[in-house]
């Protein structure tokens, strides 16, 4: 770990001011990705802006037909939130299968969505539910937000504040874990909303993406069998020592079927 300075602002405005002042400053939320990177000297920020002191970034609320989750809300809080459990049980379930208990007690939804690790869980729910990413400056539709591996629409100095999830008719999630890291090897989030059906794949590709063949099939016939036979093309998918692109493509069909089963 290299030396760095540390700031702990208590408002979004102060945090944004700090982050805008220096392009090499980094925000830290739960630190589940950044801290290991710092330890391995893979990242050299001038200073860290710790978001954990900003009360307005934390918490879950239900307003009408949407659930708003503050960026600093920890996975364990999503998992245990009565609002999330009743309105979007698939999202609460997803939180229960992120990492391990230590990760869930530290990691935050905003950190996961801002980082956009291709093997993360939350981005698939954000895109799958057609959520809105709220920043200190603007509102970004999920369709415009995710831009590939570790890349998002967030601009330098822009801070993710909250995520608004429309409440779906039904939704489900299934994933297979990487045998070593337990990150996602291939996962599928499915949702049926008033705007239609979405099927989003995570873990298998360089970023989350919608599986439109499966969306069409499920729009016509919402059942596990409707997607089980649909093959995902392997071109462009991730390939590593744990799973080839072909294997991940196969898993997409399996996980889609399980996600629909999970959604009920």
């Amino acid at each position, binding site marked *: *770990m*290299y*030396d760095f300075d540390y700031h702990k602002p208590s408002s979004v405005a102060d945090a944004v001011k700090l982050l805008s002042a220096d392009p090499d400053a980094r925000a830290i939320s739960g630190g589940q990705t950044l801290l290991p990177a710092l330890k*391995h*000297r893979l990242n050299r920020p001038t200073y860290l802006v710790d978001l954990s002191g900003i009360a307005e970034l934390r918490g879950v609320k239900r307003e009408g037909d949407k659930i708003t989750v503050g960026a600093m809300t920890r996975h364990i809080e999503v998992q245990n939130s009565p609002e999330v459990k009743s309105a979007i049980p698939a999202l609460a379930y997803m939180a229960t299968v992120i990492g391990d208990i230590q990760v869930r007690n530290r990691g935050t939804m905003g950190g996961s969505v801002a980082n956009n690790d291709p093997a993360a869980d939350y981005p698939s729910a954000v895109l799958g539910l057609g959520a809105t990413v709220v920043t200190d400056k603007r509102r970004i539709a999920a369709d415009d937000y995710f831009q590939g591996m570790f890349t998002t629409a967030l601009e330098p100095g822009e801070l993710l504040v909250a995520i608004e999830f429309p409440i779906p008719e039904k939704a489900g999630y299934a994933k*297979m874990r990487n*045998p*070593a*890291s337990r990150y996602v090897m291939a996962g599928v989030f499915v949702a049926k909303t008033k705007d239609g059906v979405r099927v989003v794949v995570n873990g298998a590709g360089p970023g989350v993406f919608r599986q439109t063949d499966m969306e069409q099939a499920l729009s016509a016939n919402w059942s596990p069998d409707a997607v089980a036979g649909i093959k995902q093309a392997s071109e462009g998918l991730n390939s*590593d*020592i*744990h*799973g*080839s692109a072909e*294997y991940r493509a*196969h*898993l997409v069909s*399996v996980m889609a079927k399980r996600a629909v089963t999970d959604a009920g």
Partner: protein
Amino acid sequence: MPEGLSGQPLRRREDARFLTGAGRYTADLEAPGALHLHVLRSPHAHARVLGIETGAARTMPGVRLVLTGVDLADAGLGPLPCPAVVRTIGPLVVPDRHALARDRVRHVGEPVACVVAETSAEARDAAEAIEVSYDPLPAAVDGRAALAPGAPQVWMQAPGNQAFRFERGDRAAVEAGFACAAHVVSLDLVNQRVHAAPIEPRAAIGRHDAATDSFDLLLSGQSVHNIREQLAGPVLGVPADRVRLSCPDVGGGFGLKNFLFPEHVLVLHAARLLGRPVRWVADGSEEFQAAVHARDLQGTARLALDAEGRFLALHADMAADLGAYCSAFGPGVPTNSISNAMGTVYAVPAVLLEVRGAFTNTLPVDAYRGAGKPEANYMMERLVDAAARRCGFDPVALRRRNLVTAFPHRSAFGITMDSGGFAEALDAVEALADRAGFAARRAESEARGKLRGLGLACFLETARGAPGEWAAVRFADNGLVDLALGTQSNGQGHETSFAQVAADRLGLPFESFRLVQADTALVARGNGHGGARSLHMGGTALVLAIEAVLGRARRLAAHLLQAAPDDLAFAAGRFAVAGTERGVDLPALARAARDPANLPDGMAPGLDAEADNPSDLITFPSGAHVAEVEVDLDTGEVALVRYQAVDDYGNLVNPLLTEGQVQGGLAQGIGQALMERVVYDPDSGQLLSASPMDYALPRASDVPPLPVRFISVPTASNPLGVKGAGQAGAIAAPPTVMLAVLDALAPLGVSALDMPATPERIWKAIHEASGGGARPPA
């Protein structure tokens, strides 16, 4: 064996310390004034080193020393030796392995330079400022590929990358066996490269005393005397008595910490140059690329059977990847160690083992829990199961037909097994396996979309490690008794088990014993920890030392009680004159023995005694295990749902500790069967499994309950009647679990599968067997 504490499942005396965070590990220890050493490592698998620019690093804050290979050469430090003795065909090539590379690097992670600074962060900062100019070369990465024509050359003196050729057995007899066989099975098998991954990484603190030119190395190690032997003369060029090695608590070794490493040399040399203690603690990821790896044996194994299924001959033709250098026992593992166990529990009249050792541009390979025996057992059990499946024999009946049942049994390689409960274990595990109920369990799994398989395997361990051991019993002024042994506990519970042995024999309270180990200043000699040797090698030495103590005590007691020594009876810690109430207890004798006025003529003061156990006898732990797995047809994931061991370790001094050792070994064996694999990029030689993020280690959730039933067939080869238990689990689990996976997949036509049986490999095997489309359960 005396009645008493031996055989009792006592909890470890160490538990309170270990479970409350009070263990003392090398990195925890204070070393006032110590500097920190950081190693700069090669990013290339194979490259010429054109130059190393250290000028900038030397002037950075806190930096006290920067060393390169040239500096070590100028200082006259020798290469790290390879003490392995192997009867090879032609020479064993042992290339010089220097603590820092000189003109060439030969694996990713090879030490190239080191920085010593006031803080660890300063040492790391400065290491980043060292500029090494490399000329990358093509890399040989796989053992078998490295031996093929045209492979990149690792060493000039090893043409074709061949480190050695080894052959053992009667070729003519084996050929005759195959010639008259009714059945022959042949399998291509890979026993993959793995990493022991102890939780505590390697660490060392080096000191040098200029006045006496003596060295002190505190380390996380397993074998202080052997490491000192390799370090003192060959590398440092000083007599062994000027080098002290000691270990505090060690957080797991599994073989990996048996060896002299470059970092040990570096901390001592730096301490000598700087006149201050120098400490080094490996990063977790440093261990994956720069400690040692293990196994990595691949080739063809064949078994010949007659029409009734009797084994006629066994032939293995293997390539062993040694990595870039010969590590201490590296060449001994795939040769001598495998040989001892070839044929395992079965009577195989003719055996031939051929091994070629290969140099590759990878981390050196050396002993890891089992060291050679896992390889011998894996190939044997895979062959036996394949023979049963292909030739229509019941797998248990085929095993039973070929088990050694009469002892002593002399193996084809001339190893004499004195005892074993092979058939008893097989019968017991078959009963526990409930094979009759398996069809119903398989059907129940199928109803949930899972394929169920049952694997049953026998195993033989040939336990000894280095022959010979030393022990001493010393009475302290405060009434405590020190038991000093040349063996070493890395968490196995020796403070408990040796105290049980001593308490029974000396008749003193269990609490009165202290274990002294892992310190060349306090232990005269010994062979440390490794090869499941401690209790039978060290325990025997302890029994001999205790007998010597009691001999002295009897003489003194006779003198004080004015009786003939033979008229004294010793019981419960007291010598008494038969038929009288006159007697004296051992603590009183220990006190009396300090005053020469109390002693008979010619007797030296004190009751302390030491003893050497010169034995080189192997013990033969064995057993039979059964596993059941469920394979998820959709994903290829394996769940180990049931495991049962039936094992013979002779007499058990502490069944609780034995069970724990077996279970720990099983977890590591399950890891090898299902998930662990060191992977280098086949072209670049970059390490792709460089941390637990990519090297899959078993978690608690991967391991089911692991019941162990003991059958105890004592051995007469040592006075305790014990057999080594430390490695057995890691030997038995890989074949047992793999046979269960293969049994699950057999209905789909899958017969070839290598460890680890990862989800993707299983999916591919299913996919290929079904001609492209995954098939539902048969």
